[in-house]
């Protein structure tokens, strides 16, 4: 599909151009989500996009679906409610690293634990963009933030490992640079029956980039290109060779009972008296 056709079909054209800064990765990821949705068979009118608060969480405002722009950290709680009430809907969550791993961290582990059928795309730009560059739980240790003028001493989460350990059944990571791979990973996540989690390492040139000596968005994409290692290639590398690098690709996939399906068979059917 041409870019114009994609935009006409899946974007609220009257809301464009978007307000994100030049070179911000949010637009690349939003484009990938749209392309991934286009690859699947889900009905556009039965797809709901939910977000929290942050620059990244503004994405649904530009997308021509039923959308919910909720409160900071609570996107997964709202999305759980939507999916629980209407399991027939395809529910997608777009969230920032702060939104999802700091204030929303508890919602994240419990949504993963339940294996509820949501597709979560985390825009990990390593920072709180909207509020001016405070560090988040995903800010790499020793990098700079408005709240870490000497470098952050906090160790950052590996959010993919966290979600897998909590019970998420599809876990993948990509970057804004690897946009083609990203589209495919999101499409696979959308088709996965269960909790699908895709972390996207992306760039905030305005607050993370400036403070961490990236002269331009292009330099931030080059960093992604140089530090991301595909799962297969990583298998041949030593821990020393992997130091400072991160994995991209499908990291985990398993089949497990899905929450709303179990609710139907183990609660609703019993309450109706179909079985006891």
């Amino acid at each position: 599909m041409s870019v114009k056709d994609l935009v006409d079909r899946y974007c609220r054209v009257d809301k464009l151009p978007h307000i994100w800064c030049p070179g911000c990765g949010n637009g690349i990821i939003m484009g990938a989500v749209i392309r991934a949705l286009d690859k699947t068979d889900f009905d556009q009118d039965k797809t709901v996009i939910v977000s929290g608060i942050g620059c990244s969480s503004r994405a649904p405002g530009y997308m021509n679906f039923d959308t919910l722009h909720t409160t900071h950290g609570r996107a997964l709680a709202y999305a759980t409610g939507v999916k629980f009430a209407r399991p027939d809907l395809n529910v997608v969550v777009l969230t920032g690293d702060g939104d999802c791993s700091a204030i929303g961290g508890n919602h994240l582990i419990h949504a993963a634990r339940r294996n509820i059928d949501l597709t979560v795309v985390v825009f990990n730009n390593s920072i709180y963009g909207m509020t001016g560059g405070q560090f988040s739980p995903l800010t790499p240790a020793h990098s700079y933030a408005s709240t870490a003028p000497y470098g952050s001493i906090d160790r950052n989460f590996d959010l993919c490992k966290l979600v897998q350990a909590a019970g998420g059944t599809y876990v993948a990571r990509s970057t804004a640079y690897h946009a083609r791979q990203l589209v495919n990973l999101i499409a696979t996540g959308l088709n996965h029956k269960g909790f699908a989690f895709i972390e996207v390492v992306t760039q905030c040139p305005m607050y993370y980039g400036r403070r961490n000596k990236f002269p331009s968005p292009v330099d931030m994409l080059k960093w992604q290109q140089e530090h991301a290692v595909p799962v297969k290639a990583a298998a041949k590398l030593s821990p020393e060779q992997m130091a400072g690098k991160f994995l991209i690709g499908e990291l985990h996939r398993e089949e497990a009972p899905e929450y709303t399906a179990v609710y139907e068979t183990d609660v609703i059917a019993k309450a109706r008296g179909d079985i006891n």
Partner: protein
Amino acid sequence: MNSEPARIELNEKWCKGCGICIAFCPAKVLVAREDGKPLVENPEACTRCGLCELRCPDLAISVGGKQHGGKN
């Protein structure tokens, strides 16, 4: 492959001149204008790989197809 040079269209209103499409075009089709926006210098070298479209944060460049704000 199509022997006609690719028609690459830019949406002038949406493009923010970030330079991403220019820097990562594998065929060096695009060069930067003074305002940082892309100028199609070598359309005949374009392989229609689509990477500029995928990586443009502003949905502002298209290869072969129509574009918002484009001439067609």
